[in-house]
């Protein structure tokens, strides 16, 4: 039977089809406008994602997601604020906050009560390249009892950063390869400019909360450690004592800034940007923060490996393992809209987003992106080499917050208040054993 379609019928059908299409799209767009996902993180995370601050001029990596899926509200806090928020909001049955950046130091069994396991979500809608492309150690640290609680997003190592102009002014050439050379060059790199401005030879974070990380680096230059991965407390052994004594000497001689005990990451970065420090321990991702915006050290900073005692050199490795760190992104158990939350995690982990975020100064967590960036950025090559031999400053443990604080207090007592290094470290080691046993 032959069916005839009249012009009027065709026009009516087309109109209905277009109407249906519009109706189909309209709620989706309206939904994208109305839906919202709230993310908690550091200012550096926001800058990396949104291309703000030191990353101005880059690509806002959340723009596509906001256009198509949901608005992203970003609550900025310090590391301490985020830690408090994790354990406070994490216990709520329902929270306005959906996602949170979690520091590696908080990746312990407590997370099971704060964050939503992501296994089911990943099984249903996989994250591109996960977990194969990620560092296995970091994925393992984010997994508790076979459940994945967060996805590593911002990863990095610590290196030694030098201000080449200051070094030149001070008559220092080359980069230090051993702790002794570091001390000598830092001493030479401490000087006063003709305008009376003091330049410090060496900078490292001295605030109690961060100090364990920078101190772990100092200790590992001498082959020591703080607490081993199998929970052996070695804070009071030879490498640690040597490192503490070296820092005390540097403090007394004015090589490190006098307000070291309150010098946190942002203060150290500011000091370095002002050209007030010749060398500093700094994250591999700090290059953009050192040189971005109105920096006085634009184009004159170079990263290098953290030195290692000559007696520990091998044919392959002549540098310290330093430390590695990472921030993962997890979803609160009481998140209002878990599906949207997971969609944002998936979006942030897309290779193209990861690449743009890395251009905005983020430390990548995937091996291929690391390798790609290492071809053009010397600091990423260093980071790649460090990742192969390094570990976090302290192993995971629910009481590690207390250990961190105690190490900070102990070191401040030695370096600033002049307490005897060995006795003070012995006391701290005994206390730490009591905490983690």
């Amino acid at each position, binding site marked *: 039977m032959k069916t005839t379609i009249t012009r009027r019928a065709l026009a009516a059908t087309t109109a209905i089809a277009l109407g249906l299409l519009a109706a189909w799209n309209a709620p989706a767009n309206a939904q994208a406008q109305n839906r919202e996902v709230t993310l908690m993180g550091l200012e550096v995370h926001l800058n990396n994602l949104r291309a703000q601050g030191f990353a101005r001029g880059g690509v806002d990596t959340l723009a596509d997601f906001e256009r198509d899926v949901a608005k992203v509200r970003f609550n900025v806090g310090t590391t*301490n604020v985020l*830690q*408090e928020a994790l*354990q*406070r909001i*994490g*216990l709520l049955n329902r929270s306005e906050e959906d996602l949170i950046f979690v520091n590696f130091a908080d990746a312990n*069994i*407590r*997370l*099971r*009560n*704060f964050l939503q396991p992501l296994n089911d979500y990943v099984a249903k809608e996989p994250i591109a390249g996960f977990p194969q492309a990620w560092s296995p150690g970091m994925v393992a640290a984010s997994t508790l009892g076979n459940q994945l609680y967060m996805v590593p997003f911002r990863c990095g190592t610590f290196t030694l950063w030098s201000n080449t102009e200051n070094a030149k002014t001070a008559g220092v050439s080359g980069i230090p390869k051993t702790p002794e050379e570091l001390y000598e060059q830092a001493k030479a790199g401490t000087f006063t400019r003709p305008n009376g401005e*003091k330049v410090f030879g060496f900078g490292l974070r001295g*605030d*109690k*909360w961060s100090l364990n990380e920078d101190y772990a680096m100092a200790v590992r230059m001498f082959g020591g450690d703080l607490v081993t991965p199998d929970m052996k407390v070695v804070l009071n052994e030879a490498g640690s004592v040597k490192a503490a004594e070296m820092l005390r000497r540097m403090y007394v001689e004015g090589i490190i*800034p*006098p*307000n*070291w*005990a*309150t010098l946190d990451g942002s203060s150290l970065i500011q*000091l370095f940007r002002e050209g*007030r420090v010749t060398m500093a321990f700094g994250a591999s991702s700090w290059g953009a923060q050192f040189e971005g915006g109105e920096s006085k050290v634009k184009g004159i900073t170079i990263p290098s490996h953290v030195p290692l005692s000559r007696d520990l050199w091998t044919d392959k490795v002549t540098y310290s393992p330093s430390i590695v760190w990472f921030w993962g992104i997890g979803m609160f158990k009481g998140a209002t809209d878990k599906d949207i939350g997971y969609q944002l995690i998936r979006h942030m982990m897309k290779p193209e987003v990861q690449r743009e975020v890395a251009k905005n100064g983020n430390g990548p967590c995937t091996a291929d992106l690391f390798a790609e960036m290492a071809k053009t950025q010397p600091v990423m090559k260093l980071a790649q080499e460090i990742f192969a031999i390094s570990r976090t400053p302290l192993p995971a443990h*629910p*009481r590690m*917050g*207390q250990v961190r*604080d105690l190490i*900070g*207090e*102990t070191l*401040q*007592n030695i*370096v*600033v*208040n002049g*307490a005897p290094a060995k006795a003070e470290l012995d006391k701290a080691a005994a206390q730490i054993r009591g905490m983690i046993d």
Partner: protein
Amino acid sequence: MSHVHAKPAAGRYRIDANTWLAAALLGPVAIVLLAIIVVPSIDLFVMSFTDASPGMDTEWVGWKNYVRILSNPDFQAALVRNVIFVVTVVGLEMLIGLGIALLLENPLPLRGLWMALIVAPYAVSPIVAVVMWKYMLDPNFGVVNFMMGSAGFPTVAWFTSAGTSMAGIIVIAVWKEFSFVTIVSFAALKAIPHDFVEAARIDGAGYPQILRFIKLPMILPALSIVMMFRIIYTLREFAIVHTTTGGGPGTSTEILALYLYKQAFRYLNFGAGAATGWLMLLATLLLAGFLVRRTYRGMFTERYR
């Protein structure tokens, strides 16, 4: 004046309509206070007998938290530091605040402007004030050292040692709150009947005698109340220490409120934090009770007690 006329009548107490009205009006407030202060306090008290820690299983530990805290050398040191801090800060605030009030009592030109400038620190948000001072006292960039150096004075490496850290904290604390003492003292001084001072002057008393025998005794009740408030508030000071030194270097500026914060939110020992909180509350109640009693004794004659 009390509206409660509770007279024993045939073994019973009669409550009049005014009392019922007062109870009805105060009831909602009392219920809200009960809900937001008393109930959480009791909850916290119960928590202080446990090893509560977020994300971990909780067990009843009896008096263990209290015993541990009271025998902990860090807590004892923080307590001693807190006492020194309170005595120094409140002492300086009283001296400076009263001194300025006595100055302002005189017919100075632009007195309103001076008063506004003095009151300004009290109006500034605590965190803003502390961050501002932290930058001002920064030994590398700070304007205070720059000005001291420019004026030919030796500079101070603030927040670099136990001494300079505590000194910096005390400077900020006194700056922030002395104006409270000034305002109350000024108002009390202004309330002294002029006849008293005039009579003393006619009798040949000089300014020191007038101050010692007329003004100070008459403003003493107001000063006692100010001191009581300042002691209670200074005892629980947190923002200045947390924002400037975090209790360091080492633990040299750690006081009780910071000790509590560390136990609860850094170490996640909520049980120990709750016990510390209750010990602080107990100390504050005892101190406040003692001071209130002393103050009221000085304020009223025997007839009104």
